């Protein structure tokens, strides 16, 4: 990586908005644990957040039924691959990135290197996100998916804030 590539950059508002749109694409295709947790909360918790009667079995133990299944569910790596390509497609369609001479498009984290620089905090988070969703034998563990989602949310909020600041200035 050249010194030029490492330098922190500030992308234009247009680029930031397109990245937000691309991240929305990922969010719409990937069943991040947040969404599953929200659904299960609706089913299993009363407004005070306490377990309802249906959540306990006869011995009074916490019932693992549907909720438990969801928490241990592995995710298809393929689903994430399609979502990341939808992200890149949003950027291509907006004319923000284009194919190299070899006909290749950048990866998710390479987009952040290109627009924010190698040493930017967002680039590191994007690389970390990629590591978490790399999967093993085609599966992403619930723990890795949870961590990936945390990175994703931070990236999303940071880019959105940056876009908002750019529009104010």
């Amino acid at each position, binding site marked *: 990586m050249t010194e030029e590539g490492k330098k922190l950059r500030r992308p234009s508002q247009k680029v930031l908005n397109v990245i937000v749109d691309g991240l929305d*694409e990922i969010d719409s295709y990937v069943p991040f644990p947040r969404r599953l947790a929200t659904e299960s909360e609706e089913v299993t918790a009363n407004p005070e957040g306490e377990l309802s009667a249906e959540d306990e079995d006869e011995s009074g133990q916490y019932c693992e039924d549907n909720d438990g299944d969801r928490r241990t569910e592995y995710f298809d790596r393929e689903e994430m691959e*399609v979502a990341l390509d939808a992200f890149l*497609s949003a950027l291509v369609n907006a004319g923000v990135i284009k194919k190299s001479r070899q006909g290749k498009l950048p990866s998710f984290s390479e987009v952040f290197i290109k627009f924010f620089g190698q040493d930017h905090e967002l680039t590191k988070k994007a690389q970390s996100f990629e590591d978490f969703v790399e999967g093993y*034998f085609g599966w992403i563990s619930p723990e890795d998916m949870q961590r990936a989602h945390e990175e994703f949310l931070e990236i999303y909020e940071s880019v959105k804030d940056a876009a908002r600041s750019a529009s104010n200035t």
Partner: protein
Amino acid sequence: MGLAIQRLMGTCGTRCLEDSVEVVVFGSMSVCLERKDSDLDLLCFRASSFKFKNRQIDLIGMHRDAQEGSLWLSSELASHVVAYGIWIKGSCTWAADVRVGDRAIETKRRRIAAFIKALPSAWHSLDETFRLKYSIKLRRETQRLILMEKGTPIPPTRALDEFWDDISGGPESVHNRVREFTTSSSGFFTRDLLARIDASFGTCKRGHTGTNTSFLRTNNVGQPPMCMVPTEINGGPASGDGKRDLLSDKREP
């Protein structure tokens, strides 16, 4: 070839080869189907696992105990290596135990099904580059699944692209198999995907009639490995991500 590999890999990679009890060349280069930008695929068995990759070499170093394990012996890669690999160090003592296993077949089925489940909702928003990528990927993965179910070793990706008629009798089997996976997908997605897959067969086959395909192994795996040295360098465009697909189980112990 050993000296050439050592030159390409530097000290660290060379030490890995020296420590290995077996070193095998596999993939397109082992059957003289490489393109100008193909890399050299190497598998070695040694005291500890190791990975090395640059633009010219992709080396998988596996623990030598793994070669006796059922996960390895029943994997897609093991069947490919036994059928098409060239041993440049040591010799293969485990070929007779290699059989494509149910687990490897189920993994392949799951992978295809997962793509076909995820793609329809994204199909409209994907750039043409990616629609092309997935139609090629699904065609190749389905070809591999068909071969695995027959117990046939998976040939290098370029052979899937260009010699499918010689391997398994024509594109209809792939078309029909993909259709089976898409029964609950939208009509537009299914039609577009199948049309692209059919078209990719037409594109691949042209201009290659008369090519000697005697290197293809259409028999079941478990045969003794080949012992030949590639001498011809072929030109042409890159074969895409096929190797990664073939090696999707390469991290098996």
